[in-house]
């Protein structure tokens, strides 16, 4: 009588352990997939921006004779970012440089009133603002997913399973120094 009770108890404990393991394991995998998905969505938005850059340059160059260097730089940065053979870190750095270059371009447009008021340019500017906003949104979504994932990887009890299957914390997307400077309104007025 006592023996079978212990046996049943053992089975229950093992089953409960297995179910707990499964649930925790699945939640970890789910979180990791969300991080990957969020990263992919940044990529989609960045590609949208690549599509806009040639249009931007075509619209702008007839007006902006003095800004050749900036336009060439932007074209080169785009080519570099689109080439598949760079590391993620390099890619992030290049994207940040693209943001910086576009920012500078938008500031120098202030010196060309004809360009600034042209319908073509206004449309492009709206699309660019749109993609920038989308990029920032997908970065924030990515950071939220990473935070959620990192919490799971580092906190008890999921950290035990994460350690077993070799899951590592990921790094957050931090706005680059150059990008932060872009939103510095004061420096814009000093130009």
């Amino acid at each position, binding site marked *: 009588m006592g023996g079978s009770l212990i046996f049943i108890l053992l089975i229950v404990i093992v089953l409960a352990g297995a179910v707990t393991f499964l649930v925790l394991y699945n939640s970890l995998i789910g979180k990791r997939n969300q991080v990957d998905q969020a990263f992919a969505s940044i990529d989609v938005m960045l590609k949208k921006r690549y599509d806009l850059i040639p249009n931007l340059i075509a619209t702008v160059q007839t007006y902006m004779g003095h800004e050749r260097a900036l336009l060439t730089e932007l074209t080169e940065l785009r080519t570099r970012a689109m080439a598949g053979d760079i590391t993620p870190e390099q890619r992030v750095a290049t994207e940040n440089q693209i943001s910086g270059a576009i920012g500078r371009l938008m500031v120098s447009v202030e010196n060309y009133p004809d360009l600034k008021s042209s319908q073509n340019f206004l449309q492009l500017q709206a699309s660019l603002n749109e993609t920038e906003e989308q990029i920032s*949104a997908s970065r924030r979504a990515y950071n939220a997913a990473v935070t959620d994932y990192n919490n799971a990887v580092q906190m008890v009890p999921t950290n035990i399973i994460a350690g077993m299957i070799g899951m590592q914390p990921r790094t957050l997307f931090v706005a680059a120094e150059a990008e932060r400077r872009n939103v510095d309104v004061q420096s814009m007025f000093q130009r």
Partner: protein
Amino acid sequence: MTDHTTTLASLYERELRPIATELEQHRRSVRQRAMVVGLGLFGGTALLLLLSLIIVPTSFFFFVAFGLIALAVVAWNALMNGAFQNYRRSFKDNVITRLVKLVDDSLQYAPGQGISREEFRTSQLYTHGIDRYKCEDLFYGLVGATDIRFSEIHAEYKQTSTDSKGNTTTTYHTIFKGVFFIGDFHKDFLGQTIVMPSGGSGLLADFGRTLQNFGTTLIGQGDRIVQLEDPEFMELFSVRSTDQVEARYILSTSLMRRLIEFRTRLNTPIAVSFINSNIYIAIPTTKDHFEPPGLWSGNAQLSMQQFEAYLEDIRLAAAIVEDLNLNTRIWSKQ
């Protein structure tokens, strides 16, 4: 603000004071009529009661008395209702309609209309089935570049209960009462993002959110909780969305700040949703807005301050557009 006050002050001297005087005369005449009719009816009833005291046996008297008094009240209401409504309409047509133009020239006012039940449901802010729905005082038009509409809404659901004797009682419970605002949002989006007043913050609330998220995952329902970066925002609101990225596209860091300020200024738990490229805002209030001074108050000539209070209520539309920066059109949507 001072700008509005000075405009209102000069307008008060020129136009509003005569309107207020006329309205007060109207109110007094309605009140006088109501009193005369009331005296006649209740005097007559009293006479009838005296008569019946003699004719009718005492055991029946209370029934007769009750019936007669009820009849008198109904008759008084029926006789006066037209005049009451007339007074309300004249207030709305003269005062509110005039003040609307101060807020924005293109803003229109329709006292008898409101945000429809379908539109209220579309907002997805209140999912409870609606059994009784009332709306009035619709304001609509453009504020700057933004198409807006808002009205008063009272939505209720019915609860019928049967006691042991088989008597059924029906009570109505409020789902939402207050001002409901619909505006054209300045960004395009496809999903649904819903910002509800938060159940609070802290460990317990976090646990609740986790459970809720787990629940929605199990059911496979489309929307999930959105964890945003702003702790103050997360303390005031809880966010659900069908699209994590889109929710952040809509709720930019600046819009979160603006919503916090707006919520703090109103000091009431507002609910906001973003659906079909519209923004829906539900602001619960207990006050009945845009109504004339009560018929039975002593002296109710509208003062400059009262006009200002009415104006402030109407200015809500402009305030939302300004506070939430809805006129900024720098994105693809024009």
